[in-house]
């Protein structure tokens, strides 16, 4: 995981409540606008791959081999005459799925752990958060690598590895966001009113840390995508003939002299996707942050 954004500045209720204002603010920031645009295009590509893709992404000999980008094959063909455009389109579906599943798993687990630690305090807090700290210092790459070493290389395992590797990060982030809420008087007021743990965590805590976590998770999607692509690049993730971008990139290194576009295109695709989520996450943060908002 690249950047630490544990301390997303206190998102005030004023900012997150008025949702129409929120989206307007989002598209007004350059980051948010570009990010939203990229992510929307990606989602369209992913859902529309069946209609948009001119060829079967895994069918060999759709065209001649090593055809440069041109009118028949917009992004050219690969070493087996497969259509690159179709592979990239189906790859976007895979990439989004990887990001969504990985973040979904680690976000859910991390948030639960973080909220429980912040709510329960005491030894539960110590054990949970110290463990998260320890795992966090290993960095996601290493944890993911260790998981793949145990589970064996495959795309599912890579996604699982990335999910597990992300948990400490989300747990820590959610924990520090929760601590802020837990120490606020409204929280104590509800406890004093006799609210039970379930109500406290799911009615009060969850909705209040959610905006922060959405920002973090959006940024996290990009990290997860990068991590999974990295594993596939190393040969520890997707297996052929999956049109996974990291794998495509790794598999086309040999053809750099003959067909440089085979390596360039998936690389650009990954970079743009990751950029899109990073910008969107940044835009969310700006739009939600009252300090930045008033500029």
């Amino acid at each position: 995981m690249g950047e630490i954004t544990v301390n997303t500045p206190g998102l005030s209720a004023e900012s997150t409540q008025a949702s129409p204002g929120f989206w307007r603010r989002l598209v007004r920031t350059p980051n948010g606008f570009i990010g939203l645009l990229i992510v929307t295009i990606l989602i369209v590509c992913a859902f529309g791959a069946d209609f948009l893709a001119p060829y079967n992404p895994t069918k060999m000999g759709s065209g001649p081999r090593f055809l440069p980008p041109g009118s028949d094959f917009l992004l050219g063909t690969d070493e087996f005459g497969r259509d690159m455009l179709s592979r990239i389109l189906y790859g976007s579906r895979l990439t989004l799925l990887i990001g969504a599943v990985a973040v979904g798993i680690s976000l859910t687990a991390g948030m639960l752990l973080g909220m429980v630690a912040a709510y329960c305090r005491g030894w539960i807090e110590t054990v949970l958060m110290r463990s998260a700290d320890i795992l966090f210092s290993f960095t996601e790459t290493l944890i993911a690598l260790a998981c793949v070493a145990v589970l064996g290389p495959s795309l599912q395992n890579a996604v699982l590895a990335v999910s597990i590797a992300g948990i400490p990060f989300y747990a820590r982030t959610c924990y520090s966001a929760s601590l802020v809420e837990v120490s606020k008087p409204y929280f104590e007021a509800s406890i004093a009113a006799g609210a039970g743990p379930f109500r406290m965590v799911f009615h009060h805590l969850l909705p209040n840390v959610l905006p922060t976590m959405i920002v973090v998770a959006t940024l996290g999607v990009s990290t997860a995508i990068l991590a999974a692509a990295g594993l596939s690049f190393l040969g520890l993730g997707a297996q052929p003939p999956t049109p996974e971008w990291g794998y495509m990139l790794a598999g086309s290194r040999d053809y750099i002299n003959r067909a440089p576009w085979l390596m360039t295109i998936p690389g650009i695709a990954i970079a743009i996707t990751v950029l899109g989520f990073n910008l969107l996450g940044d835009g969310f943060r700006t739009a939600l942050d009252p300090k930045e908002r008033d500029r």
Partner: protein
Amino acid sequence: MLSFLAGRLTMGLLTVFVTTILVTLLIHLVPGDPVQIMYAQSQGTTPEQMEEVRKSLGLDKPIPVQYFMFVGRLLEGDLGYTIRGGQPVLDVILQRLPNTIVLAVAAMAIAILIGVPIGFFAAYKQGTIWDVTLMITAIAGISMPHFWLGLILLFYFAVDLGWLPVSGGGPLNLVLPAVTLGLSNAAIFARLTRSSMIDVLSQDFVQTAIAKGLPQKLVLRRHVLRAGLIPIITMMGLQFAFMMGGAIVVENIFSWNGVGRMAVEAIFQRDYPIIQGFILTFAVVVVIVSIMLDAVYAFIDPRIRRS
């Protein structure tokens, strides 16, 4: 300060301790029989021989006993033997570890030298077109997969232009991997520096300094930069760990003979003793570096130094 450092040291030792447990468990989490994997290349190993090996490795004992055996050997500097080639794991790792550390340090230097000034400048120009442009560039930098950036740099500077050698372990060979790893982290440093500096700029003491009539340059250099860099130092420990993690990928692209490349090879070869050793070494290095940085931090920040 001492109690602060003692705390960090304890945390570091705890990290290493937990790592030893995880590493012992690792081999048991692997589906399949580790001994069979170890002897996959050996002809005609009989089940009796496999049983012998299992015994000699202590794999027939309960896991806690295995753990104490493992730690006992560890304390003697024995990390076991590689499956491929039967060499002492410690030797294999120690021969390559300096390369990874050199790479991580060089990349860190690049990241700091590029990232901190940019972040500082952006914070100073907060809200202007400079700030927006630099920060979008930084996000683009973070978004660039470094395996791709590495390949592009490799093909362009080493293969096409032939400016830099493509293999080996010399200082010139360090340039490309360090730049690859440094650039994306420079973007992270730029963002961290910016937010830290913006934080400081909004502090009352900056207003005090201005109100005293100090010239702007002095306010920025003495009051803003010093206070703003302290949180960056605390982030450096974590960033170093990320550098080590990033090195795993970059080393593979540039044939840099570090522990990262070794680890990926070991995963492919299912050479568990190396993987165990690697994880342990990684943890130890990260712990040592972060304790060192904590010490620097504790020394620089008077709030901790003088408490």
